[in-house]
């Protein structure tokens, strides 16, 4: 119990902060923050598996998040039949060519000795394949993008339930991680960081500019939701009754029937958004708890011990007969898949897919700050890091505004410096997060909740 005391205290403080936001700002905002905290927590869990368990530095979190988001579009959006009929065959042929290219390259790699001939053959396959794809896909893409460009202009998805896309998002991310891992995992730590960061940029730029896939920067809006819609709730009698019961004392204070109706309408509108967010919160909580249980079990299993052994001393672990390369690749895929799930969760929560918003600042570096601040190698720490840093990231502006007003209270309203500072309040989040990271790294490099090794 003593061991868990600091964890319990840290989490209680965090919950208290979110409840305070609920009381002082609004419950809707508090729940939004809570949901995003949980999404961040899942991302942090993924990054923590890579960094905390195995010491692999992955700055490509943005790319996996974006792929997870793409999965939501590809799974849940209804297919666009016109687009399929004009370009479907060609695009499928291209997919076939890509698969053929991969297998023929594999075949050559396996069956021909390492030589110049092999290199030329592979280069030839790639060049011929790319030219074929360009010829076949070019006109098809134009036709697909011409199908009602204001609304669709893309192939659409499969029209399946949206929750299914969370798993697909994980699989997509795992696939990318497999390729990245094969390419980059042999590199030294800081090279790996740069390489993953840049590969993620490539992935995002492809998603951004291939409009036939997911409309690119034109965004996909109105995605399906696993939760009820506010509009439906506001018209369904059971929900109105529920709100009425919940707020009966407040409603009784109303003077007239029309006033009572007005108050009730307002309450129903507020409550519907809270209800929807609660639904999301419930689903996210389930995901977080499942992942937490799995990762906790894994961490203290023989496999987890092996990973830590590899992290702490690669050569010794390798001498003991552990396949370091294979395990690194495996854990890289695992962590990335979790990040992919988080990406899918986020897009589901927002209800829209905006490839233009995937930027390394928000989706790679902030997540890394969460991992470091929370506690590397400790899953509870990682989740807490997600909560703390996201909370700071969102609430930094109001906090900064409060302090600016406090310190410049003696200055007149029109004072140039004061106006300038108030206008730049949103940027204090960078300052807060940056200084937070620097302080943690200096004075508590193991994070708020440090890694715990259970001796057996």
């Amino acid at each position: 119990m003593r061991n868990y005391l600091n964890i319990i205290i840290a989490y209680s403080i965090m919950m208290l902060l979110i409840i305070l936001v609920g009381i002082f700002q609004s419950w809707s905002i508090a729940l939004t923050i809570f949901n995003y905290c949980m999404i961040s927590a899942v991302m942090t869990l993924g990054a923590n598996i890579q960094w905390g368990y195995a010491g692999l530095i992955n700055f490509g979190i943005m790319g996996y998040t974006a792929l997870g988001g793409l999965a939501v579009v590809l799974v849940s959006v209804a297919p666009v039949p016109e687009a399929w009929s004009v370009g479907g065959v060609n695009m499928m042929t291209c997919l076939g060519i890509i698969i053929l290219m991969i297998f023929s390259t594999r075949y050559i790699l396996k069956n021909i000795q390492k030589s110049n001939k092999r290199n030329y053959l592979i280069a030839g396959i790639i060049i011929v394949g790319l030219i074929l794809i360009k010829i076949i896909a070019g006109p098809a893409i134009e036709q697909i993008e011409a199908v009602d460009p204001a609304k669709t202009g893309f192939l659409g998805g499969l029209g399946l339930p949206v929750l299914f896309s969370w798993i697909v998002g994980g699989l997509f991310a795992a696939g990318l991680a497999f390729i990245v891992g094969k390419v980059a995992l042999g590199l030294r730590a800081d090279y790996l960081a740069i390489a993953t960061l840049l590969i993620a940029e490539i992935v995002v730029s492809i998603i951004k500019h291939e409009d036939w896939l997911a409309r690119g920067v034109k965004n996909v809006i109105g995605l399906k939701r696993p939760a009820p819609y506010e509009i439906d709730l506001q018209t369904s009698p059971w929900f109105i009754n529920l709100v009425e019961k919940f707020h009966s004392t407040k409603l009784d204070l109303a003077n007239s029937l029309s006033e009572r109706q007005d108050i009730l309408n307002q309450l129903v509108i507020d409550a519907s958004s809270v209800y929807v967010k609660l639904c999301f919160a419930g689903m996210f909580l389930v995901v977080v708890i499942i992942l937490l249980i799995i990762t906790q079990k894994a961490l203290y299993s023989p496999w987890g011990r092996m990973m830590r052994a590899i992290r702490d001393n690669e050569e010794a672990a390798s001498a003991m007969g552990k396949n370091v390369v294979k395990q690194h690749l495996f854990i890289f895929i695992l962590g990335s898949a979790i990040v992919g799930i988080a990406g899918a969760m986020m897009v589901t929560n927002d209800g829209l897919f905006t490839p233009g918003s995937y930027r390394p600042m928000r989706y790679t570096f902030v997540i890394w700050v969460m991992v470091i601040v929370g506690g590397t190698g400790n899953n509870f720490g990682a989740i807490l890091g997600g909560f703390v840093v996201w909370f700071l990231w969102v609430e930094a502006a109001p906090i900064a505004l409060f302090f600016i007003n406090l310190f410049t209270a003696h200055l007149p309203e029109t004072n140039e410096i004061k106006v300038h500072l108030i206008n730049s309040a949103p940027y204090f989040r960078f300052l807060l997060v940056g200084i937070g990271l620097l302080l943690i790294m200096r004075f508590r490099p193991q994070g708020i909740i440090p890694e715990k090794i259970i001796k057996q």
Partner: protein
Amino acid sequence: MDLINAVIVLLNYTIIPALTYGSQLAIGAIFVTLIYGILRFANFATGDMMSFGTMFAVLLTYYFQSIGINFGFLPTALLTIPFAIFMMILYMLIIDQTVFKYYRIKKSPPVMLAMVSVGVMFVTQAIIRIIIGPTDRRFLDGEKFILKATEFKEMTGLAEGLTIKSTQMITIVVTIIVVAIMFWFLNKTKTGTSMRAYSDNEDLALLSGIDPKKVVLITWIIAGILATIGGILYGLDKSYRPFVYFNNMLPIFAAAIVGGIGNPYGAFFGGYVIAFAEIFLTYAYKRFLVYILPESLEPNSLMQLLSTDYKFAISFSILVIVLIFRPSGIFEGKRI
């Protein structure tokens, strides 16, 4: 005649812009490589440090303009370079003393330092945005063109015009001067040699009486000069926007690694490799081919290998290819 026209087209739309962009990347890449070679970490605050120096140049340019100082036909920003460099070095030294020094003395692994530089990146970005805001700013004044397309056409009687912007000329000339001085400094002076020795083998360097404090100090000073000048040149040529500078860090890293990280010559070369690849692969060759091919073979399409949207992706792909086949870069890396 057609051949000359074709060459002019290439010169105008690919070679000169690529040389300019390459020079800007090269200065940044040398900055990255220097920090990596001597201080031994990948500095993720690169873009923001360049942005920080440029910010002072922008502010001072506005100030100079308001009190009526200008630099004739050259941009006023060139006058502000020394002041901006001074502020930049001051900032870097403060950061070094308060942040990086602790980890250097503790001999933390490079990853730790890289992570710390992420913290520095956040803080620098915050300071920049609080002081100057995130908006797009142009601070170029003076003569805009050295050679205008119409003038060139009149002069030579060719169908194609050649435009040379003054910023392009300034970028290339300043880069040559700065890089030449820096290579001379690294190779011919005693301090430069001690820096190279420190980069090659820290223990041996310490044994032979090289003062590590001095090496670090000089490194930050050179880094400050490079970061500021690189940033100002980019800002003059395009425009100053903090977010763009942060993003520029990525091709700069690519350039440094492609050239062989830790090796300034490689970084210099890598900058141009990246720039030329980006521009040559995204340029639409139709106009060029119309001149050199017989009429029957004239292309219908744009003859563009990749859309310009993939500019950044190209440099990153080059990096990935280099990392797979030659992880130490084109030139042997990790040396100075």
